[in-house]
């Protein structure tokens, strides 16, 4: 076996050359991967610690990439076989000390990275006891936001700036995920339990909430707006919303059908999205799975909304979940029925 040191001394020139190459590549890499340019603008307090971690990781990546590729390209250039040379190269089967070094140093990096990661995770989940609560309910393929403190239901998420929002995420059907790229953090909304996400918006503006977990056909379109307002504007919005409740059941019904995502599956113009259209639904004779027919009246509609699994319309899959309408009171269902009736 060759003595590793002797080999090293003999190759000082190559080491310096390759080393310089690696340094240059690293610098170029760091310049290219400069985080500001690779991520959307940050708009939440949680993004800060994540972006810091990104910048650390990108620098590490730039260095490691340069290290391997640099030496490799150097070898390709300087250690190529000359034409006609059929001899083997120097016999260099290994060096335990080197191997140990490149096992232990990465191990150290890994542990440091894990600890940095834990700290950043802690910062993103830091609790503000005064946080404003919002229930976020995902359903194929809409979002609904409920503000328990103000009794508001909305299809857009409106948040006051610089105040932590505690989002309680849940889903009525399949798994969805709440994500706003500018806020960085992401959390699945799963059926059968609430999951928490904390966001402290720091920039005014309108962003897009995207559903980040494949949830069926219109997953790509499962977006909603998140509007970050100043404290005063937010208060104004709250007042506007609470006063906006109409006393016309028809209007309320339409709003509810919008908010509860009914219109995501039921059209109002006769086309079939997923379920039967609401258009001219009332009064018609519906044939049900299993052969029965039924005259669509108030009682039937109420039943079909409250407990959709009970009667399945012929030719449609049993996709509408009882959880869809679980949040609706009886009056609210009647409002929706009033709305359906109006669609003639």
């Amino acid at each position, binding site marked *: 076996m060759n003595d590793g040191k002797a080999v090293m001394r003999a190759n000082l020139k190559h080491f310096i050359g390759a080393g310089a190459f690696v340094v240059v590549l690293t610098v170029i890499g760091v310049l290219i991967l400069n985080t500001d340019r690779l991520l959307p603008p940050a708009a939440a307090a949680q993004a800060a610690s*994540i972006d810091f971690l990104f910048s650390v990781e990108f620098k590490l990546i730039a260095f490691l*990439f340069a290290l391997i590729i640099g030496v490799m390209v150097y070898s390709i250039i300087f250690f190529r076989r000359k034409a006609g040379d059929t001899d083997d190269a120097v016999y260099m089967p290994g060096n335990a000390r080197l191997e140990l070094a490149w096992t232990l140093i990465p191990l150290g990096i890994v*542990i440091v990275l*894990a600890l940095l990661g834990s700290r950043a995770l802690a910062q*993103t989940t830091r609790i503000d006891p005064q946080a404003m609560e919002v229930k976020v309910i995902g359903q194929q393929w809409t979002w609904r936001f409920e503000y328990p403190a103000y009794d508001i239901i909305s299809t857009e998420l409106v948040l006051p700036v610089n105040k932590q929002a505690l989002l309680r995420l849940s889903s009525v059907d399949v*798994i969805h*995920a709440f994500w706003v790229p500018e806020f960085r953090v992401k959390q699945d909304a799963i059926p059968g339990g609430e999951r928490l996400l904390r966001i402290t918006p720091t920039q005014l503006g309108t962003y897009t909430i995207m559903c980040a977990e494949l949830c069926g056909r219109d997953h790509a379109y499962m977006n909603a707006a998140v509007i970050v307002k100043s404290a005063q504007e937010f208060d104004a919005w709250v007042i506007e919303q609470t006063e906006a409740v109409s006393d016309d059941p028809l209007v309320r019904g339409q709003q509810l059908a919008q908010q509860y995502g009914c219109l995501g599956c039921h059209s109002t113009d006769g086309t079939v999205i997923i379920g039967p259209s609401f258009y001219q639904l009332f009064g018609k004779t519906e044939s049900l799975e299993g052969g029965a027919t039924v005259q669509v009246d108030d009682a039937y509609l109420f039943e079909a909304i409250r407990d959709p699994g009970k009667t399945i319309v012929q030719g449609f899959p049993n996709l509408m979940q009882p959880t869809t309408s679980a949040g609706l009171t009886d009056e609210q269902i009647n409002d929706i029925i009033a709305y359906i009736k109006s669609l003639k």
Partner: protein
Amino acid sequence: MSKKTNFLSLGLVRGVFAMLVGMPLGMGLVTLIRLAVGLPAWNAEPAWVVGGLVGAVAFMIGVGSLSDWFKLAAGGELPEHPAGAVNGWARYFNFTLDHKVIGVQYGVLSLLMFSIAGLFALIFRTELVQTGLQYLNADEFNTLISLHGIVMIMAILLGVAAMSNYLTPLMIGANDMAFPRLNSFAFWINVPSGIFLLSSLFLGGFDTGWTGYPPLSVRAPLGIQMFFLGVYLFGLSSILGALNIIVTVVRLRAPGMTFFRMPIFVWSAFATALISATATQLIALSFQMVMFQRLFGMGFFDPARGGNVLLFQHLFWFYSHPAVYVFVLTGLGTISELLPVFVRKPLFGYRWVAVSSLGIALIGFFVWAHHMFTSGMSEFLRVPFMYSTLLVAVPTGVKFFSWVATMWRGKMSFETPMLFVLGAISIFLVGGLSGPPNAVVATDLHLHDTYFIVGHFHATMFGGFVFPFMAAVYFWFPKVTGRMFNERLGKLHFWLMFPAFFVQSFGQMFIGLFGMRRRIADYDPALGFEQPNWLITIAGMVIALSVLIFFINLVYSTKRGPVAVANPWRSRSPEWLLPSPIPEHNYPQPLEIVGEPYDYGLVGSVFVRIPSTAVIEEPVK
């Protein structure tokens, strides 16, 4: 013994016929049972599932894969080494015991599946060039990405099996696998599997992605049952094939071949097999549970009935994470195997590289939950999984550093296989280095389910499987066919594929960081992703073009290529001692291993000796 080959003498044809008979039989059976217990006679789901299972068994009977076992069960004796019943090209379409034929069968099926899945990718990529939906509707799009994913994964598993089947017995000096019949069974079961996977396209497709998370998969169209069936069967194939590899490596090594004298490829095949043989059960179980929830209404994943949707993810990823190391380890083994040959230097730190494979495989069992960082696991549990995931980087790093040290001061030459090896190293490096940002929980909160992940895994899979597989095909092509491939076309293939791949992968990572989600049929024009998406698609097409060139090269060279010299790469590995193509029972005499496998440059060193014949030394210069 060679019979006249007619159409029906091809096992494949008989199998397909049998399957066509078996499926309606199974369906009829279900219908009869349903009638008997008083249910409505026709229900598509159970009919297709049972029909499929019966069809698969019928296929295996038709191929002739079960005949020997039936004979054995009826009390017959089996010859240990029956002469091949069929010769010539027809062997490749029949039940056979020869591991080399089976290896080629795997390889060809792998490339076929690869092309089909690649074609799917090109179709949905074309859709993504512009915002809005032009050619596909959302359901078709979702079906295509899901099928692209799973068929590619099947292609990888087949490709891995191809390499390890063909090479492992040769490299350890064995004449065949430990269980040749099982080996053949494990191959042929893939054919109905592939048929099922693709048939889901015509049964409504499925819109769940390859991961098939419930409750979405519970609500998906009928096609998903065919997807489950397909995965079930190729999972079975994986398990049986892997078991065979382990036994072969443990029991059939030539005298003198200790574990630390095995060619490095065998190490990685062994490590891979350890994963496949055990973890695969869990994906089968998780899919079976969804299947049963659909068929019998069992409430595993229905929270309203005490089920839990996260359970599925735990079971699924317990397989599917280790599976990604199944995808790469043989590829990395190939890199380690070929590099010394083209550098003419020993593999630096052979033992470290060897146990690194084992390390990756074993650590890989304990990291699955990193796919679930945002799914709502308990908060603190994410930390140990972050740590264990990052730990995998260390043995992978050992491999990289050792490769680079192997190149250092070598005498590198750049034939096509070597180009693919170097390409593989650089691409896998990109893929690997994009792993830690995913593994660190805080940054994964941003990256999860974005195109960054898509970029990450295409880089790892291209670098860890596609490129090494192509390197392997070029490298062992003369061994398999006895002819050389066309070097020019090979280089053209590489120089098209390599840059195109970087464009594709970096493009994906770039838009992912900026907020492009995975698995979306359409994206918001305001985000400004049209141009990068257009580039990615073009890159994908260039890759496809290069693959087409590859196929042309293979087909042409198999027929017309110049006859290869015995050991064109001057490799020390034992299979190069044999004539090409290799005779049916590999080694005429048992080998004797007398040295280290990679002692290039050590004067007078010998790895393999065939006793009683001349010592086979370094080929004459």
